[in-house]
């Protein structure tokens, strides 16, 4: 409703005069939707505030339709809010159990452990991590300060978090790593970096080191979802078939030839049978390799009695049961890379790799 008043005055005055003329219209629209007069009044005020704020931007002739739409939207968003509140009302109830008496102490210990772990980071790591996590500074502005890229900062932050997790566990366990290999191994596991884990031979170290075997458990849960490895728990004869079929599937997906797939499945079959026969249980992990070439990596791991003389076991015809004595040496011939690590009383890990030929 454009008023007939002359418009010599400033834009702001003109706007408010126009908006004042819209009041009856807005009131009518809101009243027809909201029965409660007090609520309706609030909504009219809100609508008018919005229209007034927008008056400068809206063409004079279009102020009326703008007001109509705004009034409707204001009412609609009130309904939405009410609905949301109704749906979420149950959440207002605090379902947390009452605090246990030791919770405070535990929380304090936890804080101490985190603080102690933080002191073990380098200054630069700590500063960057705190700026990001506590002050909420984003990676881009951090990158600008550090003369780096956002991606590099994010990667650095990930490594720092991985280190913090390791240090935190070490502090809260009050443990000092017994060997100098422990930290690199734990870091690789904490970061979920499988290439690094292979480089430091994490699987072997965990069989050897009690502390790392224990600490790796909370660290392992991380990053498993994006794992492209297939794990087969091995206990019985049937698992031998399951493991070799898993290897067959992965190898086929990677584009190995039918012959190679059978070779790989045969090797997996041999190694899995060894687990069933010599250890009570174990696992076979079949993983894809993309670096440096496409390949398949198979790790057969058990916590069995171990092999007393690996060199001897790798000889053809050496057999402790009535087998052909072909298990280890045969599988070695079928694969490109083959490594056996075994420790008496601790277990055996066989790692084997086959690279895909250039097809």
């Amino acid at each position, binding site marked *: 409703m454009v008023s007939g008043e002359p418009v010599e005055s400033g834009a702001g005055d003109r706007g408010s005069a126009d908006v004042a003329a819209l009041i009856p219209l807005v009131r009518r629209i809101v009243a027809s939707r909201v029965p409660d007069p007090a609520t309706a009044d609030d909504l009219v005020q809100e609508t008018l505030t919005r229209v007034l704020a927008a008056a400068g931007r809206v063409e004079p002739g279009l102020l009326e339709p703008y007001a109509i739409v705004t009034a409707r939207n204001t009412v609609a968003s009130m309904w939405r809010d009410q609905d949301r509140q109704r749906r979420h009302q149950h959440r207002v109830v605090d379902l947390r159990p009452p605090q246990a008496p030791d919770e405070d102490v535990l929380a304090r210990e936890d804080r101490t452990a985190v603080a102690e772990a933080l002191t073990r980071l380098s200054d630069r790591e700590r500063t960057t991590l705190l700026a990001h996590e506590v002050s909420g500074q984003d990676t881009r502005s951090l990158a600008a300060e550090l003369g780096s890229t956002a991606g590099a900062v994010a990667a650095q932050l990930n490594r720092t978090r991985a280190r913090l997790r390791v240090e935190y566990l070490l502090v809260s366990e009050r443990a000092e790593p017994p060997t100098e290999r422990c930290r690199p191994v734990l870091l690789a596991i904490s970061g979920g970096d499988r290439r690094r884990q292979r480089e430091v031979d994490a699987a072997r170290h965990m069989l050897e080191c009690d502390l790392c075997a224990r600490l790796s458990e909370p660290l392992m849960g991380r990053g498993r979802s994006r794992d492209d490895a297939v794990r087969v728990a091995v206990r*019985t*004869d*049937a698992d*031998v*078939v399951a493991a*070799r*079929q898993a290897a*067959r599937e992965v190898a086929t997906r990677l584009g190995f030839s*039918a*012959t190679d*797939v*059978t*070779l790989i*499945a*045969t090797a997996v*079959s*041999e190694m899995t*049978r060894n687990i*069933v026969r010599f250890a009570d249980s174990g696992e076979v992990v079949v993983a894809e390799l993309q670096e440096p070439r496409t390949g398949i990596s198979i790790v057969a791991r058990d916590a069995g009695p171990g092999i007393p003389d690996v060199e001897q076991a790798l000889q*053809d015809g050496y057999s402790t049961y009535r*087998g*052909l004595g*072909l*298990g280890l*040496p*045969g*599988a070695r*011939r*079928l694969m490109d890379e083959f490594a056996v690590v075994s420790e008496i009383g601790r277990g055996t890990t066989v790692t084997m790799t086959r690279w895909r030929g250039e097809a």
Partner: protein
Amino acid sequence: MNDGPRLFSILRQGPYLIASVHTALDDSQLVRFQNDLVERIGSDRARGVVIDVAALDVLDSFASRTLRDMAEMARLRGAVTVIVGIQPDVAFAMVQLGMDTGRVVTALDLEEGLAELDRGARDPTAQRP
């Protein structure tokens, strides 16, 4: 060990038994296969056995040894054994693995296997080394 459905069949064909594996067998199923077959050789008074392993995805050391043992047991029970249907990829893997399978008679398929048994029946002096 001997529960669950049989994943192999042993059928009689004249004086011969045709033993076919239907799917990949695990070790205990293989042992069951071996025991059943040796039993059937006696109860059916079979003179020859064809073992069809075309359905086996892998012939690893255990499976190879079991087949070799089966052939040897059958021989001791008076039957000649021919193994048929070893897939080319499986054969390749067996050689790579270093399996010694020299003493076992093989044929390409069931037809060849039965023909082989017929030849052996006609000329009993033509025993395998």
